[in-house]
């Protein structure tokens, strides 16, 4: 087997596809961190738990009585319906998080915001546990048929193609909104300088509403897809995914939208290759060492711009 070159190449490609799939989850979650950080200069510690909430809502929609309804819509209809409902409800949760935990605390300064963000994260995580229980839940098998086929000579599953397709479509949409639309320009202006943006007539409250709806909405869909991909979900999965996605945000340059996408995909691939070729147990340690190294050597990330401190 050691001499089987063809086998080695195909393993490498499998790792790569797997890495891209996981990376697209990170990228979608990282977008939420990055948009919120850009406008609010705040790490939304509750974001990872909103991702978990998305996974659980998806679970509920695909199982039990509601599962029969979604199943009756056919494969793609049911999936689209589920994804839409998950995105909508997690977006609503995101807006509520901003209203309840951040807006009233904003005047008290950054430290208080960190604590209220942590408080919100603890609340959501334990609310999920109270509703769905502390034991892991399993997504129904083969919601998406476990079809294997070859795409341009690369072996993939239908699920992987679906996930990558949806993720890239969402990322493209976000990129177009942020870079090309006038509303996206308002978001970028608010990220650059909130006060000046306000003076220029940009309704920053609207921008904040937008980022707190869109970011968690994307995160919720990522949670749903994560559940479909790995099938097992647990109430505290948000911490770990949140931390990884945040690493991706830093990797790409915090506050930078294309950076978050790039960072997520790179992180997924790096992680997958580390697990495949170095050590599965130590891969997370390497990821965090990488995070620290980026912050030391290139704190503005891959695509971030340099800013000088004013004295």
């Amino acid at each position, binding site marked *: 087997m050691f001499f089987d070159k063809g086998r080695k190449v195909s393993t490498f490609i499998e790792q790569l596809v797997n890495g891209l799939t996981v990376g697209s989850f990170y990228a979608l979650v990282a977008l939420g961190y990055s948009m919120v950080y850009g406008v609010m200069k705040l790490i939304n510690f509750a974001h990872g738990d909103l991702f978990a909430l998305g996974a659980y809502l998806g679970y509920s929609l695909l199982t039990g009585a509601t599962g029969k309804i979604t199943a009756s819509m056919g494969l793609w209809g049911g999936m689209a319906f589920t994804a839409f409902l998950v995105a909508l409800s997690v977006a609503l949760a995101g807006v509520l998080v901003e209203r309840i935990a951040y807006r009233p605390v904003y005047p008290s300064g950054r430290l208080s915001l960190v*604590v209220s963000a*942590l408080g919100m994260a*603890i*609340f959501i995580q334990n609310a999920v546990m109270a509703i769905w229980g502390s034991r892991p839940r399993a997504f129904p098998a083969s919601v998406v048929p476990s079809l294997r086929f070859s795409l341009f000579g690369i072996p993939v599953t239908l699920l992987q193609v679906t996930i990558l397709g949806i993720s890239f479509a969402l990322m493209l949409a976000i990129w177009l909104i942020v870079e090309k639309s006038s509303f996206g320009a308002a978001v970028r202006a608010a990220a650059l300088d909130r006060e000046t943006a306000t003076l220029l007539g940009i309704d920053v409250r609207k921008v904040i509403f937008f980022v707190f709806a869109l970011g968690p909405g994307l995160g919720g869909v990522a949670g749903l897809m994560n559940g479909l991909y790995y099938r097992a979900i647990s109430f505290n999965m948000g*911490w770990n995914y949140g931390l990884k996605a945040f690493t991706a945000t830093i990797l790409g340059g915090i506050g930078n939208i294309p950076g978050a996408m790039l960072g997520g995909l790179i992180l997924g691939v790096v992680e997958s290759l580390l697990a495949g070729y170095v050590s599965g147990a130590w891969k997370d*340690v390497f990821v965090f060492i990488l*995070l620290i190294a980026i912050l030391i050597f290139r704190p503005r990330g891959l695509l971030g711009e340099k800013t000088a401190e004013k*004295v």
Partner: protein
Amino acid sequence: MNISSGILRRILQAPGDPGKGGDTRGRRIIGIVAAAFFMFFPLLPFVDNYWIDVGFYVGIYALLGLSLNIVLGEVGLFDLGHTAFYAIGAYVTAILNTRFQIPILFLLPVSAVAAGLFAWLVTTPVIHLKGDYLCIVTIGIGEIVRLSMINNPLGLTGGPNGINGIDNPRFFVPILSSRQFYYLLWAIIGISAFLLTRLQRSRVGRAWNYIREDETAAKALGVNVRHYKLSAFVLGAALAGVAGNIYASKQMSISPESFTFMESSLLFCIVLLGGLGSIPGTVLGALVVTVFPELFRPFAKYRLMFFGLALLLMMIFKPAGILPRLRDSGDRLRKTLEGKKTRKSHPESGSAQTSAGLPESAQANGKPLLRLEDLDLSFGGVTAVSGMELEVAKGGITALIGPNGAGKTTVFNIITGIYKPMNGRVLLRGEDISSKLPHQIAKAGVARTFQNIRIFPSLTCLENVLCGQHSRGRAGLAASMLRVPGQRDEESRMLEKAQACLARVGLSDSADSLAAALPYGKRRYLEIARALAAEPELIVLDEPSSGLNDAETTELSVLLKSLVEEGLSVFLIEHDMNLVDMVSDHVVVMQSGKKIAEGPMCEMRRNPKVIEAYLGSEED
């Protein structure tokens, strides 16, 4: 009823209250009551072992809270991975005890040193990172440590199951019972709180607070920011290592589950809940965080949900914490130094000599004190200063003028070491200081103020001015905790000097009020007093008259002239041409990063280049 409400009012006094910064009597009464409660709690008839153990865990969180408070509360560094240091202490104890049967109490200092050393190693390369970035790094460190413990490197940490069979400590008799552990732990907390309180009232503790309040101002006034940030991390980690040691020996087994990000978040919340930098507040925060879930045990499923909600509500309704730190008044600081003092106070103190201790007299007028040669600095292709040169004469007032954006403040930032020039030299008394760090330049005799006032808002005016004296003292961590005679003398000397400087600018009455409570004009004076307290040879003022009314500006000119009479040299940026005319001996005009003219003000008014660049609009 009256008495208690009075005490209550004092305790709840908000930190931002204008007026006097600290009536601590009410706090002390409560403190004594609380200490008595913790001392007798395990002996109360209705308290069983279960509640004594709860008391023990309150203690563990209190000790961890105190250790994080040094980093987060005193210095304001966002440390969300503090559990890593606690884990190092616990694992060092567990490994050395189970493998080599080294007694637990002997391992107590070993754990402290190991955790401190680890903190030094991992924070040294990242200590320059700001705010959220440092926060993320600490989260990363916390996760790296926890995941490493799970992965069982070299078979040392026992993997996910951890290490079992850790001994109990022996202190003449074996410490076994809940009650014994309780007393061991709370004795250590008592000693720690005592020493930390001493640190708060010392040069070291104040330096930490200056960094928290305004890092740039702190370093420009002589605080070695890097050193103090590291020392806070090392001390905080060492204390967390102590907590790890006691925890491991009480549990007799440890596993990575006890050292999660959730634990670090809890510690963060304890410090904020109690009140940033407040020692009694941190202990109270630990009590709340530990006992709250215990009380809600019947609702097991929902208790952490309620807890998250409670944190949120707390931050909405009382963001300063339950027991915010009260600042010490000048009298209080002085009292702590009295009694056991070895020598009498210094005879020369009290007189307001601003440049005391400097060898040369004011008469050496004319010789350049500061010389800038061929300075270049650009920011990302935008030239701020190019080929700039000038001289500041000793014992006079030199003014730097020029239109907005000419690069004046950049020149000041280069002189004080905030920016490094790309080319050229800065010579102070003929010695090149351009490669020195801001705090070294402050020590060499250059003190400054800032264009957009940078005072330390939540410290008292006296504490603000004491910052200037920082570079004139030496006492470190150990000397401040043990309060050795040399440190006492130094402290009282610093206090006297700071009070003299406050008096110099007419702010003696405000010594004990918080700087945030001062009106705008007085804040400028406070900054000047702080710079004077650094005992500089050259004082560098960035637009000192901006925001002052006419009467205040006249007052300022009188002050500046008298400073020169006392031997100080002054270099100022100014837009108020009348003030420049009134006080300056020499004027340097800048435009687009270059010197375009220099000479007395009356000549500058006639110089065509200057008129064209700057004064033109006024003279036409």
